[in-house]
């Protein structure tokens, strides 16, 4: 992986590496962008910096230990990964999960989706310089985090799902609390939807950015809101139902904008659906036990499980060999399915769109070089500018268009003397 900005010898394009360690990256990953002027002509990505060998580690631990390990695959979709894995194991061992447990899994799953989508909204706001939105949505996210902490004892790794059901029951008081919180969150989400539909900053900054059209989404195997914003009508909760989803009424939110704006609308729509699902699950929650006994040794067999995580479809494959340790565990997280779409979305876009497209990157070039080579793309003429001359030409460029600060500058100079 090259670690320097370099000029490609034949085309004169500039190759810029971003990551794996970069001030604006939330997690280590590495992008190599080829730029012609401001435009990205090619992008490639290198992952693996966070590879912890969890699949191998699962083979060496018992099913009980794996519960805790699998939950730590992700710090946000922890319930998604755990439930996906547990469902596969339950399929192999033919464990009949009680209805009440199925409902509780759905409630926690949807609360997790709310927490994840509100988090995303804040990050997206931050990446487009709309930090008020970050403050608002993360403030509201605290409501759902408190509810999760109340239900599960933890804010992030809930540890709710286990083989044969769930670890904790929901009390009538907790149901009341959740319903009250959901009402508040729904009110706030309506405001965000209003905001997304009318606020010009959001519409102008997100529209047409990070395009992923229907056919490209299918070809590149995109999943989740990324695909649904391009009109791909797919949702594992409806297509391959699990837990109590067959008994829930909800609609799959799709959109035809196919850009970051569309993805925002899809996520906001999914929030509204999540509130409705939680209300249905809590009001129709069946009575009865919330867990059945599961064997420590799982009979030999194999199963492929799917789960609609907040970021998209999660796939787990589990193979057992009759012992208390799995033979093979394979995890396909939604981001791995979406990563090819990211490079596609970046190509032929402006470098300035990268942060919001990747929603994790905020490159800083003003500190890299003080001497700037300029090539006019139309005439192929080359010239070299130092920092002061670049500034001067910038001032002239604006003066020609009627923006003139020279009088203000004079005034300021005088006042500093």
């Amino acid at each position, binding site marked *: *992986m090259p670690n320097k900005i370099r000029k490609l010898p034949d085309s004169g394009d500039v190759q810029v590496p971003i990551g794996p360690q970069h001030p604006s990256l939330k997690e280590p990953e590495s992008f190599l962008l080829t730029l012609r002027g401001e435009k990205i002509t090619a992008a*490639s990505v*290198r*992952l*693996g910096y966070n*590879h912890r*060998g969890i*699949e*191998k580690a699962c083979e060496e631990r018992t099913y009980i230990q794996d519960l805790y390990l699998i939950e730590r695959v992700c710090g946000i979709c922890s319930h998604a990964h755990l439930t996906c894995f547990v469902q596969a194991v339950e*399929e192999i061992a033919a464990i009949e999960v009680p209805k009440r447990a199925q409902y509780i899994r759905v409630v926690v799953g949807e609360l997790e989706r709310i927490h994840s989508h509100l988090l995303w909204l804040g990050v997206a706001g931050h990446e487009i310089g709309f930090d008020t939105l970050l403050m608002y949505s993360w403030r509201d996210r605290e409501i759902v985090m408190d509810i999760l902490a109340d239900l599960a004892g933890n804010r992030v790794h809930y540890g709710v799902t286990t083989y044969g059901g769930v670890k904790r029951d929901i009390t009538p008081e907790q149901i009341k609390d959740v319903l009250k919180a959901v009402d508040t969150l729904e009110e706030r989400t309506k405001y965000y939807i209003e905001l997304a539909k009318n606020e010009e900053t959001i519409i102008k900054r997100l529209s047409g950015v990070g395009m992923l059209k229907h056919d490209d989404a*299918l*070809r*590149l*195997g995109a999943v989740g809101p990324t695909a649904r914003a391009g009109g791909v009508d*797919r949702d*594992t909760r409806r*297509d*391959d*139902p699990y837990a109590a989803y067959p008994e829930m009424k909800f609609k799959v939110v799709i959109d035809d904008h196919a850009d970051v704006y569309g993805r925002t609308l899809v996520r906001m729509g999914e929030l509204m659906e999540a509130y409705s699902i939680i209300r249905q699950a809590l009001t129709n929650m069946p009575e009865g036990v919330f867990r059945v006994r599961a064997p420590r040794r799982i009979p030999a067999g*194999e*199963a*492929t499980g*799917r789960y609609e995580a907040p970021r998209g*479809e999660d*796939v787990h*494959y589990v*193979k057992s060999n009759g012992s208390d340790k799995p*033979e*093979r565990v*394979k995890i*396909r997280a939604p981001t*791995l*399915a979406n*990563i*090819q779409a990211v490079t596609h979305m970046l190509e032929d876009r402006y470098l300035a769109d990268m942060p919001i497209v990747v929603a994790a990157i905020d490159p800083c070039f003003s500190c890299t070089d003080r001497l700037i080579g300029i090539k006019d793309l139309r005439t192929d003429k080359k010239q070299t500018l130092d920092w002061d001359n670049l500034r001067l030409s910038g001032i002239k460029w604006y003066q020609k268009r009627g923006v003139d600060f020279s009088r203000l500058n004079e005034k300021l100079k005088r006042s500093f003397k």
Partner: protein
Amino acid sequence: MTEEQIKQQIEHQFGYLKDAVVIKRARRLWLDVPMDKFEEVFVYLTEAMPLVRLLTITGMDEGTTFGIIYHLAAESGIILNLRIHIPRENPAIQSMTSKFSCADIYEREIKDLLGIQVLGLPEGRRYPLTDNWPDGEYPLRKDWKGLSTEKKGGTLNAQ
């Protein structure tokens, strides 16, 4: 198309796959094919049948062989797990990137972690191991015992 219809159509198309398709539960089919027949079955399933998605590819060590499972899915929610077994000596599979561009990263993973050659895989950076990972070390093989943990430097063992 229902699970039963898919099973019948596969058996009708390929005589040698009689009773090879197993329906384990609703929406889950399993199919083992001989290695030399894999490509024609794969192409048929993904082009003539509604199995239009490749969810992921799982590779695993089975002792004398390696197992590769292609998890194919239909829009209706049906998953068909198509499996081949390849010999342990000079293991190699054909890249499916020409049919599914998303196969790229899954195949790189199999190549890195199990040491299975992927023929026809486009040039690109490895995934997921580090660039300086030693040759011939394949973590997902069952006989892999981990890299040496010999300590270099430090003062813990100094007398």
